[in-house]
Every structure is written in structure tokens, then in C-alpha cells.
């Protein structure tokens, strides 16, 4: 077999986290190679290195046997490497043609549209799928957008296609179409790397599979030599043994804290993102909300926390209807919110730590009277928070933006938990944090559960969900596909619900 690409001993560190640890990876000409692993296994980092978005700390890359240095996506494109990102690199308000034309240097200066349209036509006839070249991107479905990305790669005459979790946003039939197309491309000698964590996919479409776990390469296998069970063991194996939870039993009170009924919420484009969703969370319960991101979790959270308007249905907190009463009203009823994008939403970076600590209750006693804030009390309070939650900061006057990610998250958590919440909405609370911070945050959440808080935990990290939840709700395509008690849950079952099977 002719090796088109070889990556040898690739190591990449982010701070003290090793995202890739001496990974070897080889790609044959005309194969579909699955890169398998759970979230955080290091798949995307490895491919971002290949695409020139990151520079590796160690290791070498060979293409057609010659050593290359890839410093930018431009270098990668020159070498015939194209990447279809999970979040599409498309300009929403432009047409398909314009998106394809961008970055194609060999089209004519005048009327590039005509040439590209022709190319798209050739492509769609050859591979038998339809796309309107003059449609605007935002009008397209996820599957169509992905086709645009593939056309872009094709028009650049790429020899290596990298697809990052390509079926995440696709319907089953769209996924089928994609696989058919990939097989056709493979037949023409194009090599394809498929980044995924879905076992069915790799079994269906791949020739070989490289399994990553915890930043290390576990093995590279021929698909004919393995089955799903074996792959799953390689993917999750070590982790599962390492962090076995003591008791998988449901453990909460009967009274309902949050009651969501037939909730429908629109996304920014005005399309339904949450469709007819109903569930309850009880006192002392952690409900894990699993799902691949982009399936309506964000909109659901925003609706519950009052940031987004509810179109239909109702939300009740402790039997009181709080539908569309706004952020402040929700907050006043004891709902803590640990937001997903903590830098964008969770803190005010140029303001001091102490001022950030009171962001959600600055307008209440003892921090303020009807007009003025009492900085003496605020400082004392912030000092208490800093020591209690072990936030490492010089003092309470430093700008919050200068703290590290873990400390910012602890700050947000401290602030949210200090309002003595009855309900905590925790959205990806440990994303991007180191092991120590993650553990501290888990302990805090479990302690609050003991105290009787109801907690909605949204996470892409299945391990986290399994470790903490009493029940697990799986969200797919705007609906809840099932709510499973933890004693009957396993990764495979949840995984299959997550992809809508």
C-alpha cells in the first residue's frame, strides 16, 4: 500500500495538559481511515496540527515520503490537504458559489461565478447529488452545507480530506448520502480521514481505524479484524476502570423543583431548536443532559434561564409558572446558571474579582442599599469566597480577566452557589479545565445535591454525565430521545440515543 501521509511522534501540549502524546499516524492512498476516540482523546488536536492550525511541539510529518512543515492552513491547502470542520467555515450570507470561489486562486478575476457554477454542476452530476449553486448558505440544511465544504475541497483538488465529526448534524439519510459520496471519492484515489466517536460509522465506511484515548494512540486496526465491542473497549477501556462510580443508584427526593412541559424554543434564525420538550428535575437530583452540541441544548438552557423567549409550553419552578418572566425573575427564584461560554458571558473581564463575585446579586442587601454599593462588605465577602473556593488570585481587587480558566470557573461557581439556589443549571462546567479543577467542581456539585439542590448538568463528556447524574436525558435534534435511570444506563445506550438511533 502506498503511504500518502505519515505523522511520526506528534506531541502537543497546552499548558500542562498533553493533548497529543507521541502519536504515530499513517494514511494510505485511497483509503478511508477512521480516527476514533471519545471527546478529549486528542483527535481534533492531531488533525488541527495536520491542517496547520497548531504547530506540534514534537514530531514530524511526511507527505509522499518527503518531510513537510505545515505552518498555516495555506500550507496545508498547497499540499492538497483539505479539512471540513465540525463548525463549517462558510459565510452565512453568501451564496454557495461565492463560498466556493473564496480561496480558489485559479478562477478568473471577472465572473468567477460562471466557472464555479460549471464546476459545481460537473461535481453534482458525477456524484449524483443536487445543490443549488445560488442558494444562500443560511438557507441550507446542515447536510447541504457539508456538501458545500466537500465541493470546496474537491475544487481545490485536495488529495487528503479530513472530516471532523461529519455526521453530527446530519439526518440518517443525509449521513447515508455522505458515506456513498466518500466511497466514490475513495475509488478515485482520494484519501479520507474521518474523525468520529461513533462506532457504527467507522464499521460502515472505514477501511482502517486508529483509536486514540487520553491523548495516546491505542492501536491501528483493519476494520475486518475488529467488532464494535472490541473498539468500544479500546476507546473507553482504561477510563471506565479508572473512574468506576461507587453506586449507580438513583437518590433524590420526590418533590419537583423544575417542571418543563411541551417546551418549544426558536433559535437565532427563527427556526425551532427545541421541540415539544418535557421533563422534571427533583430536589436533590442531578439530571444529566447528554447530546452532541448543536442539538438544542443551548437554546433549552437559555429558555430556562430567561435569556431566550419561550414560543410554546411552560416552565415551572417550585410549582410557580416562570415562563418568559425574564432573567431577573428566574434568578430571584433561586436559579443558578453556570454559562457555557464562561469568558463571553460569565465574567466582566476588566472589573475586579470582587465586583464579579456579586454580579448576580449586587442589587441586594447586604451588598447595596437602594443607591449605593457597600464595598467594605463586598470585599470581606469576596475574601471569604476566595478562600472558601480556593480561588488562586493575588487579591480581590485584580481584574477577573487576568485569572486562569479554572479559577474563572471557580469564581463563577462560587458566585452562583452563594445565592443558595434551589436549582443549578450547569452548562459544560468542566470543559477545558485541568483534572484538579474538574474534580473540585464535581465535588461542589455533589455537595449541593446532598443539600437538596436540583441540578441540570449539560455536558458533552459522557463520563462526567455518568459519574454525576441520577438520571440522564438525551437530546437529539431538538427533542429528548429518552430519560434513563443511571442504574440502567451505559455508554453504548446513551451514545446511540445521542445520534438519534
Amino acid at each position, binding site marked *: 500500500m502506498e503511504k500518502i501521509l505519515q505523522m511520526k511522534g506528534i506531541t502537543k501540549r497546552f499548558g500542562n495538559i498533553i493533548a497529543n502524546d507521541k502519536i504515530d499516524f499513517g494514511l494510505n492512498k485511497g483509503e478511508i481511515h477512521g480516527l476514533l476516540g471519545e471527546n478529549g482523546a486528542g483527535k481534533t488536536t492531531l488533525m488541527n496540527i495536520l491542517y496547520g492550525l*497548531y504547530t506540534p511541539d514534537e514530531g514530524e510529518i511526511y507527505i509522499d515520503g518527503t518531510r513537510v512543515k505545515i505552518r498555516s492552513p495555506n500550507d496545508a491547502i498547497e499540499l492538497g490537504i483539505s479539512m471540513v470542520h465540525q463548525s463549517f*467555515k462558510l*459565510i452565512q450570507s453568501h451564496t454557495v458559489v*461565492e463560498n466556493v470561489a473564496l480561496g480558489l486562486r485559479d478562477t478568473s478575476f*471577472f465572473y468567477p461565478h460562471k466557472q464555479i457554477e460549471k464546476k459545481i454542476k460537473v461535481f453534482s452530476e458525477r456524484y449524483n447529488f443536487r445543490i443549488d449553486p445560488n442558494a444562500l448558505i443560511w438557507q441550507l440544511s446542515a447536510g447541504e452545507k457539508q456538501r458545500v465544504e466537500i465541493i470546496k475541497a474537491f475544487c481545490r483538488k485536495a488529495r487528503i480530506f479530513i472530516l471532523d465529526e461529519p455526521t453530527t448534524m446530519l439526518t440518517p439519510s443525509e449521513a447515508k448520502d455522505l458515506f456513498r459520496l466518500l466511497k466514490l471519492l475513495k475509488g478515485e484515489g482520494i484519501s479520507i480521514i474521518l474523525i468520529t466517536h461513533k462506532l457504527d460509522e467507522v464499521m460502515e465506511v472505514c477501511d482502517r481505524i486508529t483509536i486514540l484515548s487520553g491523548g495516546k494512540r491505542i492501536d491501528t486496526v483493519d476494520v475486518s479484524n475488529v467488532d464494535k465491542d472490541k473498539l468500544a473497549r479500546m476507546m473507553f477501556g482504561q477510563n471506565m476502570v479508572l473512574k468506576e462510580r461507587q453506586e449507580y443508584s438513583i437518590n433524590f427526593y420526590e418533590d419537583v423543583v423544575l417542571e418543563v412541559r411541551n417546551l418549544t424554543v426558536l433559535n437565532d434564525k427563527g427556526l425551532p431548536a427545541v421541540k415539544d420538550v418535557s421533563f422534571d428535575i427533583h430536589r436533590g437530583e442531578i439530571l444529566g443532559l447528554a447530546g452532541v452540541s448543536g442539538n438544542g441544548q443551548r437554546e433549552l438552557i437559555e429558555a430556562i434561564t430567561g435569556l431566550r423567549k419561550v414560543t410554546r409550553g411552560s416552565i415551572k419552578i417550585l410549582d410557580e409558572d416562570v415562563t418568559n418572566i425574564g432573567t431577573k425573575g428566574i434568578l430571584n427564584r433561586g436559579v443558578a446558571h453556570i454559562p457555557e461560554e464562561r469568558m463571553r458571558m460569565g465574567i466582566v473581564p476588566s472589573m475586579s474579582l470582587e465586583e464579579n463575585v456579586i454580579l448576580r446579586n449586587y442589587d441586594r442587601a447586604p451588598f447595596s442599599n437602594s443607591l449605593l454599593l457597600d464595598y467594605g462588605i463586598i470585599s470581606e465577602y469576596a475574601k471569604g469566597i476566595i478562600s472558601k473556593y480556593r480561588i488562586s488570585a493575588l487579591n480581590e481587587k485584580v481584574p477577573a480577566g487576568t485569572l486562569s480558566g479554572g479559577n474563572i470557573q471557580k469564581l463563577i461557581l462560587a458566585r452562583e452557589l452563594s445565592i443558595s439556589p434551589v436549582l443549578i443549571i450547569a452548562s459544560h462546567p468542566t470543559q477545558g479545565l485541568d483534572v484538579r479543577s474538574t474534580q473540585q467542581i464535581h465535588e461542589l456539585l455533589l455537595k449541593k445535591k446532598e443539600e437538596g439542590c436540583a441540578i441540570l448538568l449539560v455536558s458533552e463528556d459522557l463520563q462526567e454525565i455518568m459519574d454525576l447524574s441520577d438520571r440522564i436525558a438525551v437530546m437529539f435534534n431538538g427533542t429528548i430521545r429518552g430519560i434513563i435511570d443511571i442504574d440502567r444506563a451505559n455508554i453504548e445506550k446513551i451514545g446511540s440515543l445521542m445520534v438519534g438511533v
Partner: protein
Amino acid sequence: MNFIIEVLKATIPAGTPLLLGALGEIYVERSGILNLGVEGMMIMGAISAFSMTNITGNVWLGVLISIIIGGGMALIHAFNSITLKANQTLSGLALTMLGLGLSGLIGKGYIGVPLSGKLHNLPVYGFKDIPIIGPIFFDQDPLVYISYVLTLIFWFFLFNTRFGIELRSVGESPDVADSAGINVAKIQYLATFIGGMMAGLGGAYLSVVYAPAWIEGMTAGMGWIVLAITIFSLWRPERAILGSYFFGCIRVLQYRLQPLGISPNLLNMLPFIFTILVLMLAAREISRKRISSPSSLGIPYFREKTL
């Protein structure tokens, strides 16, 4: 009828400096840069064209120098906002102050001086005899015809060339353009430069053709009206015609209505009141059609390449 034709005929030259400025600013904003310094670049264009014309006696040399000066001033803004990634609003305001100040300094000796060159009307044979249209559009000076051609060119390049696609992409999502291998800074510099040249040209038209005279602060808010027209045009060159001639018409009416005994001060308010009304109109259309300003307008682009 004759009155209407006369007003419309006068409307074109009155709207031309606005049109020229707006065409340029459309390109600037399409690339994601907000240049509030149009007023400053225009007035610098006006004084440089006026002085050059007076020194050389050649209007076209005046026009040329105004383009260079306008472009040069825009480069200051480009450097501030693209290279230094400084606050674009403040930089634009600074440019306006610089322009108003420097033009006053340079122009001190030119107040009340007659212009030594002149641009005569040049009726277009064959077209000028078309009823109504002919006398309005085709009995004008050469710079007006150039403004027609430039509108066409600006429209054509924006929507029918690779450059246009790249320009619009940079303004919509610089990160996508960057990952497609487009040099974001280069495009933005170029667009800002073009915008400055056009503002300079607009200013030149004002001082050597429309007035023709040098009056300190003669742009009198036209630069800001250009910015409003840019929004009203929804960042499309062909729509800038509508906005520019609308404000041109108001300017003409301002003078035509004076003999009726309306206070000139109240009439002088008209363009500014209409600017606000036009902005409200545009806001309604923008929300109805779900279009928006170039998404990255005014936001410096940082390539976030490494973690």
C-alpha cells in the same frame, strides 16, 4: 414641469460629492472597517483640489491630488484600525478633526479667492436631446459622468469579481476568509484606501466644481450624511445613487425654498433631519429583510491561531 426638471438637473451635481463618498465608504464598510473620518477626508480633498487647481490652473491636477490626499488620510485610519487594532470610532473622529483643522490652515489664504480653472458642462451628443432624461442626466460636467461610470464599476466589482467576493468575505467573517488563504489585512487596507480616494474626490467636486470656491468647513456635515447614505444603501453601490440624489435634491430645495420666506436656518436643518429619518427607514428595511451590516464591521480581526 420646467421647474421640476430644473430642480432635478441641479440635484445631480448636488448629490455627486455624496455619491462619490458613499461609494468609497461602502467598500470600506464591506471590508469590515468603519471609517467615521469621511468628513475629514472630504474637506482635505476639497482644499487640496482647490489649491492645486489654483496653482496649476488645471482642474484635473486638482482632482488627482485630492484623490491622493484622501487616500493618504485613509491610510492613517487603516494603520490605526488594521495594524494597531485601535478603536475605529475614535480613529475616525480623529481623522475628521485633523482634516477640518489642516484644511483650515492650508485654506486660510484661499478664502474668497476665485478659482483659476473651471470644468465646463459637457452635453453628451445624442443623449442630451432625450426628453426629460437628457437635460437632467446628460447635460452635466465630466466629473458627473465619471461618477456614473464609477457607480457602475463599484457595483460590478463588488458582485462580479473575485476581488468583490474576497472583500465581502473579509467583512462578513474574516476568520473564514483567513482560513481560505485570503490576506485579510491587505484587503482591508486596500478598501480603506479606496474609500479615502473616493472621499477626496467627493471633496474635490465640492470645491472645484460645485461651489466653486473654498469656504472653511465647507463640507458642513456632508461626510456624516455619506455615512448615513452608506447604511441607507444597505451597502450596495447601486442603491447609493438613490440616497445621494435624495440628499442632493434636499440641498437644491433648500435654496429654492428660501425666496418663499422660510428661515434659511430651518431649511438648513432639513438634510440632518432627513438623515435621521432615512436611517430609521433603513433600520426598518434591515430588520424586515433580515439583512445586516457586514458582520465584523468595526471589530478588529485577531487571528486566534494558537491556543
